[in-house]
């Protein structure tokens, strides 16, 4: 992508690199992965593991 060009003072016209965080936010599929992986692990997997680990009554 070499569209927008930042006028940068008296420098030559140059392409400012897109910061990594913006690249992440511009990538819906990476976000999709994060948005599914985080709750699946922290909520569902850990939760079900705790339920499975409930001891049997004496």
């Amino acid at each position: 992508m070499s569209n927008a060009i930042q006028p940068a003072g008296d420098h030559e016209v140059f392409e400012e690199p897109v910061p990594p965080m913006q690249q992440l936010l511009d990538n819906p599929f990476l976000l999709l992965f994060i948005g599914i992986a985080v709750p699946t692990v922290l909520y569902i997997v850990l939760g079900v593991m705790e339920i499975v680990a409930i001891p049997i009554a004496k």
Partner: protein
Amino acid sequence: MSAILPPPERVWWKQPLDRVEGLWIGIALVWCLIMFFMMPYWHVYGKQNLANEAWRTTPEAYMKKAEEVVAKYKVREETDQKIPVVHPPAGSDVYLVARLWSWWPILELEAGKSYRIHLMSMDWLHGFSLQPENINVEVHPGYDHVMTVTPTRAGSYSIICNEYCGINHHTMASRLYVK
């Protein structure tokens, strides 16, 4: 109409924050952390924490324990259905049975003493709601949930079901006495 148009700058990540946003984010973050740490704080210094103690069991095994306690500590019966009233010694294990659509037995406790109260359902989900004290706990079939309760004030309390459990859900109410 910029929120519905692509951002005009190619790189918007480096735009400086306005003070109103920066300040608010700071304040909000501090508040969020306070709220978060209130929960562990209350586990250490607070007195009202729901127990994590739970056991996997079957309705039959649970019912057997409940019946043993009733046989030992029954003091009288109430209503036409002859629901036993149990007066267990302080510190003992007390079993409360939730089933369609009643609580069994009725408990009679003493103020200032602690009891290990067990909660379990025989069939579907039920909701333990102690009124007017307002302690509300979910009651599952197959999971014996043990909490140590210390009544503080004498009186007649009600236990009502507050998890929908079918057509007669609204008739599921019982008592709890504190001497």
